[in-house]
């Protein structure tokens, strides 16, 4: 099977050719260490400034509020540990949600072992937090609220502006893990009252290994990576110059193309979801309409297990992902699917297909033709399907 259909854009994207081409000279011609004094170094310093300006512009921040990191996980770690450490005299309470990425969840678990109290807000059946729950969770010890902009598994876009407004009125810092949102949906740190924001280049056709943390001017934050004076003494380590050039170009392209790209993605996504939901005994995970990420679809197929679906799809040339336990390497299925109230046995049968700029309607049609056959083949092997059919016959 030579077919190759990539439907896992939420995991990572390819680097766009235009992005890579801008990066290339910074590996060979302009390789100088930006901290040095000679001409060669000045070129790289200039490139970093331009990259920073582009990232800042895309989220309506000022350039001196952008700090480059080694990726989204580092940005999340830094935001949460850095604020916890800088504000620990003020309080030891942090509020987050049950559906965060592990970069946030495991950081909070680490802090909980070191004397912090963490509140995990629940979500409704579509993955939304409630503003009322958030308001009720705030105490005079609360120093930080961290709520993801959009969920990586089920595509739920959280009410970020309302959360920002509430945190601002309560004078509590607000961090959002916007790794799935930046470059895909409008993000405006000023309008949305965001104090800290994490983003990662490889989710919007930039390179891997480069991300950024936005820190609003005037907020004190302790360092995570100690060492040299890079990033205005906030994040040590020789800059990933090519990566910074790449993330800048990628975010610029993503912002320019956003409207047209989303129009196409929403059309293809809805065609895909509606087609797959015609398979009996399936359910959609996450919301429908504008509060769902344009490229995300996530569906559970009852009576079968996700890893089997992925292996069979892979054999047909389709790359996808699942929230089943077997794909996570643990005994439990995805914490996000459990958080929206799915029983284990249904969560095991989830299939996430995430579309991107290169996705074509022909690919969607092929997937719509292939998936139901794979589902039926696995159901024909499943004793649960037998039980279900026999019950129906009685």
């Amino acid at each position, binding site marked *: 099977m030579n077919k190759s259909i990539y439907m896992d854009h939420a995991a990572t994207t390819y680097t766009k050719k235009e992005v890579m081409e801008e990066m290339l000279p910074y590996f060979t011609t302009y390789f100088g260490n930006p901290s040095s004094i000679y001409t060669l170094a000045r070129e790289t310093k200039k490139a970093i400034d331009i990259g920073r300006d582009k990232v800042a512009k895309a989220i309506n921040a000022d350039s001196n509020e952008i700090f480059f990191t080694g990726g989204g996980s580092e940005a999340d770690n830094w935001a949460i540990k850095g604020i916890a450490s800088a504000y620990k005299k003020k309080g030891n309470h942090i509020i987050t949600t049950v559906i965060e990425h592990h970069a946030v969840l495991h950081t909070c678990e680490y802090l909980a072992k070191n004397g912090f109290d963490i509140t995990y807000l629940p979500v409704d059946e579509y993955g939304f937090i409630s503003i009322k729950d958030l308001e009720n969770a705030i105490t005079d010890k609360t120093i930080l609220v961290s709520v993801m902009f959009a969920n990586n598994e089920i595509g739920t876009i959280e009410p970020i502006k309302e959360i920002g407004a509430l945190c601002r009125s309560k004078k509590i810092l607000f961090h959002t893990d916007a790794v799935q949102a930046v470059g895909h949906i409008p993000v405006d740190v000023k309008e949305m009252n965001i104090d800290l924001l994490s983003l990662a280049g490889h989710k919007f056709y930039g390179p891997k290994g480069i991300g950024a943390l936005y820190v609003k001017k005037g907020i004190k934050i302790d360092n995570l990576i100690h060492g040299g004076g890079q990033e205005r003494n906030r994040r040590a380590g020789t800059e990933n110059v090519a990566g910074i050039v790449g993330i800048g170009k990628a975010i610029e392209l993503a912002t320019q193309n956003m409207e047209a790209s989303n129009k196409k993605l929403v059309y293809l996504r809805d065609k895909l979801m509606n087609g797959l939901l015609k398979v009996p005994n399936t359910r959609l995970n996450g919301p429908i309409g504008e509060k769902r990420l344009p490229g995300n679809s996530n569906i559970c197929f009852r*009576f*079968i*297990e*996700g*890893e*089997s679906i992925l*292996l*069979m799809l892979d*054999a047909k040339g389709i790359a996808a992902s699942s929230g*089943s*336990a*077997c794909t996570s*390497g643990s*005994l439990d*299925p995805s914490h996000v699917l459990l958080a929206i109230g799915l*029983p*284990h*046995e249904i969560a*095991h049968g989830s299939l996430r297909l995430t579309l991107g700029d290169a996705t074509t309607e022909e690919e969607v049609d092929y997937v719509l033709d292939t998936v139901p056959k794979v589902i039926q083949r696995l159901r*024909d*092997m*499943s*004793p*649960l*399907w*037998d039980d279900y059919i026999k019950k129906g016959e009685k």
Partner: protein
Amino acid sequence: MIYSEKVMDHFTNPRNVGEIPNADGIGEVGNAKCGDIMKVYLKVEDNIVVDAKFKTFGCGSAIASSSMATELIKGKSVDDAWTLTNKAVAEALDGLPAIKMHCSVLAEEAIHIAINDYRSKAGLEVWDYKEHDDIHGEVHEE
């Protein structure tokens, strides 16, 4: 995580999928909550396993283990089939990733239960069987 070619072969083209009407012994293990259920059907004639089939809900290695385990006991005497270990199933598949070893345990257990089901239906004494001290065992006990 990478599966061996054997595992992929038995997953993609599983042998012995199905049910045996009026099976002489049936063994079912696992539960839906854990994400795998294995059901093994045996046809026994003159103490020989003349046919074995399975239905499995589970991951790639669960389906491959079911396929391989049923292959390994077909044509064997019931006594020989009883001695099939999960290690033998995993080895016949050219190995399973460590976190997937429990799939081979399920296959061994399903066969033991099916054999004892046959023995009990045939009026024979059921054999003693010590369950594996496996991660799955712990989960199932909750």
